[in-house]
């Protein structure tokens, strides 16, 4: 069956992560960015800036790298596979919650998209070094929560949470 929603919780973080997702408290502050369709020059800037903001908070290097990789892969996906969109990073004192919304065209089947190696990337995207079909698995590997809503012809919504410890 084709699902238009995907949820993942890292087992070791599940109780606090679920509590966070249910309550969605007000962040200390947020950062927002827009992402242009196929803008391979500027894409990645938001990820570096979010990483830098957390670095200033004193977040550990291992966590910073996980945030950077997960956010970067998702930012690239909006650039490469959608008509553009935006990112909002909600910064808390114990975690970061990053939300990606794009302007479609959506995924046919989220579970298929999550499969390592599955990619619909065209020649232009592949020439840039993308299209291995490893981005979404890489986001899952690095995130404590991953939630995606998408279907063919609709916008894609992706949110992830990473705790600082």
């Amino acid at each position, binding site marked *: 069956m084709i699902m238009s929603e995907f949820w993942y919780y890292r087992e070791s973080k599940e109780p606090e992560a679920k509590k966070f997702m249910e309550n969605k408290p007000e962040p200390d502050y947020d950062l927002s960015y827009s992402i242009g369709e196929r803008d*391979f*020059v500027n*894409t*990645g800037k938001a*990820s*570096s800036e979010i*990483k830098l903001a957390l670095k200033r908070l004193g977040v550990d290097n291992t966590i910073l*790298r*996980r945030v*950077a*990789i997960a956010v*970067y*892969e998702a930012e*690239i996906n909006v650039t490469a596979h959608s008509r553009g969109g935006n990112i909002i990073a909600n910064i808390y004192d114990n975690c970061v919650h990053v939300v990606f919304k794009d302007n479609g065209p959506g995924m046919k089947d989220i579970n298929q998209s999550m499969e390592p190696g599955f990619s619909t990337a065209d020649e232009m995207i592949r020439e*840039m*070094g*993308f*299209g*291995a*079909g*490893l*981005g979404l698995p*890489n986001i899952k590997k690095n995130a404590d929560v991953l939630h995606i809503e998408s279907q063919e012809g609709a916008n894609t919504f992706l949110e992830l949470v990473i705790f600082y410890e």
Partner: protein
Amino acid sequence: MNLKKVIKALNGELLTKDVNIDIDVTCAFGSDLISDILHCTKEPTLLLTGLTNPQVIRLADMIDLFGIVFVRGKRPTDEIIKMAAKRDLPLILTKFTLYKTSGILYNSGLASCKI
């Protein structure tokens, strides 16, 4: 392996003239796939690649790179060299293929990075 030695072994050209290259490189990774390269998170790495677009430099914002070696004589644009200089990231150009570059460095004792 000192980065100066790496350049010599690869008959390489240093593209970032003002960036310090007196650094000790402990491991390397070769790939033309960004998602693949992003798996190198365990230790700082010297990247060997044929990719020359701006996203290769952005990788250095996400993971720890000692520097980037562009293989097959693929020269990046001045814009990209500037991006790297801003990050103190050494860029090296070699005519050798990815396979040959990897072989030379591996035989010189440079380890493969842990993933």
